[in-house]
């Protein structure tokens, strides 16, 4: 089984360290979400894995070998870094054929990948007229040409409509289900929650988290409890006195952290406070992600 191993990967552009001593492994049979705010070094890392950018230090290997030492790279790594990276007036089939031939792959692979991505009907058309979703599919077709064990996708759902997003998500899952190692980057946590088994989170080029999705959710984002009562002011004081942190929620509700729902219920019963709602809030992935990367966002808004 082929895996991607990134070890101590560092990239400097002049005085800027874009990727800083990054190490992680992309295992076969699962989707690894590569997450970070815009400008955190995701694309640069992927380019270094692909041999398109030279690391300042460290290594990125695929099945133990550097990308540039691969003799038939399409048979080992399929990548979609930029869906726009096709010549708008070269027919889809010709685009794929040139790629297949360059790696000594049989021409029938072109028709096979076009069928798998549902592009047969536009094989003879020029991608200049394709929608973004179709271009993404064409890029994925190219990535699948050599039936590789490792797949790399950079922000594949960016700009897609809900149907396109769902298609890509299901496709990634099925690729991982076939035993392939799938690395997919995104700056949208909510997207990853539905796609990834494993998460690699970076901020400002540094590793922030390398963990399973479930552990990530449990470990990050402290749970809150939503409380609704006819006398919010008085109960808020009692909650604070009991050690909880309280802030005002919408429609005169209270958002309580630091106490479980059960503890809040007991406190209300003890003081004879009527509760009209008591509901634990699942920490959202988005919150967990924001929490993790809040110190690592390159450009923060003034209000942040």
């Amino acid at each position, binding site marked *: 089984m082929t895996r991607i191993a990134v070890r101590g990967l560092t990239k400097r552009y002049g005085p800027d360290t874009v990727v800083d001593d990054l190490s992680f492994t992309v295992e076969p049979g699962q989707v690894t979400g590569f997450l970070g705010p815009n400008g955190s070094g995701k694309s640069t890392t992927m380019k270094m894995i692909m041999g398109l*950018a030279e690391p300042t230090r460290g290594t990125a290997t695929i099945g133990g070998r550097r990308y540039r030492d691969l*003799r*038939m790279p399409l048979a080992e790594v399929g990548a979609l*870094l*930029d869906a726009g990276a*096709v*010549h708008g007036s070269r027919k889809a089939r010709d685009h794929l054929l*040139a790629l297949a031939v*360059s790696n*000594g792959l049989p021409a029938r692979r072109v028709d096979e990948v076009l069928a798998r991505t549902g592009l047969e009907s536009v094989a003879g058309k020029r991608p200049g007229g394709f929608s973004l979703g179709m271009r993404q599919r064409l890029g994925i077709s190219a990535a699948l040409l050599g039936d590789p064990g490792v797949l790399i996708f950079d922000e594949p759902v960016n700009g897609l409509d809900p149907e396109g997003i769902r298609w890509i998500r299901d496709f990634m899952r099925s690729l991982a289900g076939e035993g392939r190692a799938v690395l997919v980057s995104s700056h949208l946590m909510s997207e990853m929650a539905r796609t990834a088994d494993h998460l690699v989170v970076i901020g400002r080029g540094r590793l922030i988290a390398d963990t399973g999705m479930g552990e990530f959710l449990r470990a990050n984002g402290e749970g809150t409890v939503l409380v609704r009562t006819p006398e919010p002011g008085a109960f808020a004081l009692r909650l604070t006195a009991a050690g909880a942190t309280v802030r005002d929620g919408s429609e005169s509700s209270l958002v309580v952290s630091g106490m479980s729902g059960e503890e809040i219920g007991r406190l209300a019963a003890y003081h004879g406070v009527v509760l009209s709602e008591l509901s634990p809030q699942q920490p959202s992935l988005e919150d967990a992600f924001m929490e993790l990367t809040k110190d690592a966002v390159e450009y923060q808004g003034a209000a942040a």
Partner: protein
Amino acid sequence: MSADVPFTRTLQAEWIKLRSLRSTWYTLSALMAVGIGVTSLALSTVGQDYAEASAADRQAWDPTSLSLTTYIIGQLIIGVLGILIVTSEYATGLIATSLGATPRRHRVLAAKAVIATGLALVAGQTLMVAAFLLGQAMMAAQDVPHAALGDDGVFAALAGGGLYLSAIALLAVGLGVITRATAGALATLVAIVFLVPALSGTFPSWMHGLVDIWPTKGAAAVLTTVPDPEFPHPWLNLGGLWLAVAAVLATAFVLLRRRDV
């Protein structure tokens, strides 16, 4: 693991890329149409030119060279072809896909160079022969001294024209890699083939060696059958151009290897 892929596959892939673009065929059609058009325009009044020519001019009358002056325009169109083979990939971002599929980058450039040079040789040679035949027919029709394919030096001039044009194509590929942008490469090429020759009269004497091998100047002297006293060894000059182009291409190889995509 995977077997090695022979270089012929890289060549084949580059050829598929080139032939699958309509712009390639438009450019080649433009080369022929403009090349032939310029020849017929330039020679439309050749009878009058000859009638008005001085005795010295008649002495140096070179019907072969006259019919091949269209190379001046031809080299620009062939240059555009060579530039686009490279820069269209940078403009679209396709270069990352190409180098991802063939991480031994020198292979990609070598294949592009071979394809561009080969295509320019065939197209350029065709243009040279067509322009020669048309030009001689026009001169014959206007009762001006003209040449035939079998005449002394004609074959050499035609072959020299093809080799000259393919050197320009190779130069264009190199410029495309170095500049990574169509506009930059084209501006550089125009400066090389038009601007510098136009200004060469003002250059200091130590630069005359450069003028000898420069496009549109000494390197184009092979397109004659009557020796130009300014350039007595035209084939050495053309050889010099090829060496200079090889140096540009070597620079392109180094840059392509070193630079991040």
